[in-house]
């Protein structure tokens, strides 16, 4: 179960990284980075 959860978070985190690189507006990039922080914490299962 935990591995499915981890894969899901990994997929979403990678999508956020893609958004970060695709978007050209700095504010959008900052927003993606902020959300990415939360996903990174979950990715490493920090609770």
């Amino acid at each position, binding site marked *: 179960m935990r591995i499915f959860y981890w894969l899901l978070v990994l997929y979403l985190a990678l999508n956020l990284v893609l958004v*970060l690189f695709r978007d050209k507006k700095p504010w959008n990039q900052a927003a993606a980075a*902020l959300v990415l*922080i939360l996903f990174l*914490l979950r990715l490493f299962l920090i609770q």
Partner: protein
Amino acid sequence: MKKRVWTQRFFSPLCFLFLALIISFLAGQQFSRQRQPEPIYPSAGLTAQKKLSDYFPPISGTAGDTEVYIFEGQEAGGHVLIVGGTHPNEPAGFITAVVLTENISLKRGKVVIIPRANASAFTHSDPQEGSPQRFGLATPSGPRFFRLGSRLTNPVDQWPDPAIYINPSGQKLSGSEVRNLNRCYPGRPKGLLTERVAYGIMEVIRQEKIDLGIDVHESAPEYPVINAIVFHENSSELAALVSMTMEAYGFNLRLEASPPQLRGLSHREWGDAAGIMAVLLETANASHGRLKGRPSPALVVEGKDKFYTQAARLGRLFVAYPESGLPLKERVARHLAAISSLFQGVEEIYPEKGLRVEGIPEAREVLEKGLGAFLHPPKEASQKP
């Protein structure tokens, strides 16, 4: 030219990515630190140290497993269970259990101490309260830091909450109470984490053949059950005797009978389900009351709050709240005096169940010297704030 375009295109995303990694690392460190329990240094009188999972193996490896300290005298006598940290946002309960663990030894009888009854609730704090994560107590060798946790089990360990919680005794409560250890007794062996912890504590009571259970708490100064001993009807004589003894220590202790309709609480279910004498002790803690000002480690330790002083002046509290506050040392001194009185009371009423406990700090000494004088000195890095 091509290199310049690349730099322009990727410079800011890389900066943001780097920043996100740094913040995640720092935040992760802080979160992880909340999961590391502070060391407790038991006194030389300790006879055995166990885990809750030794009594109830299914709890092993979960966030609910916690330490159980056993002090046993050579002479047979009564068996007493002292539970602190049922609600980790009530620091006097936890610190009283720590002070006892670090100071007592027994000549007669047995004392079992669980300082962090709801270990999971120590790993987070109440959301939207701005509670400090830790508070420090000065000892002669430097400050010792302790976690200030939440009333409820960490949702990371038990989630989601139901809309309505029907506890093991069949009482309907609001959903979040499913994570409140003191609503989950007598527990369920195959239930949710908090219910399994409650069941584990019931197993400690059964396997250690406990005669008297003491659950050590605090409540908000505006709550009516305060500076009180809540007792199961099988402990009414003992509670009355303790209340009188406490007068001699200079503390007024209110007597509150455990309502038979209020189910799931230690003072009710320990008595009903395990048949032991069961009491719960309460002192006044401003740091988890609703009227408090800015929460801070100083508020936890010194208990000084101008809003509570004002509320007391207006007659809105159930306890006198001086301008000098109600410091943690006074609240712990009160609990220690009540626990000493309970030991004396048991010996007086049931001589065959008497205990001879040495090393309990006297209330007067705690008030004079402070709590740090009765805590083991901190050891290196583990005590960093």
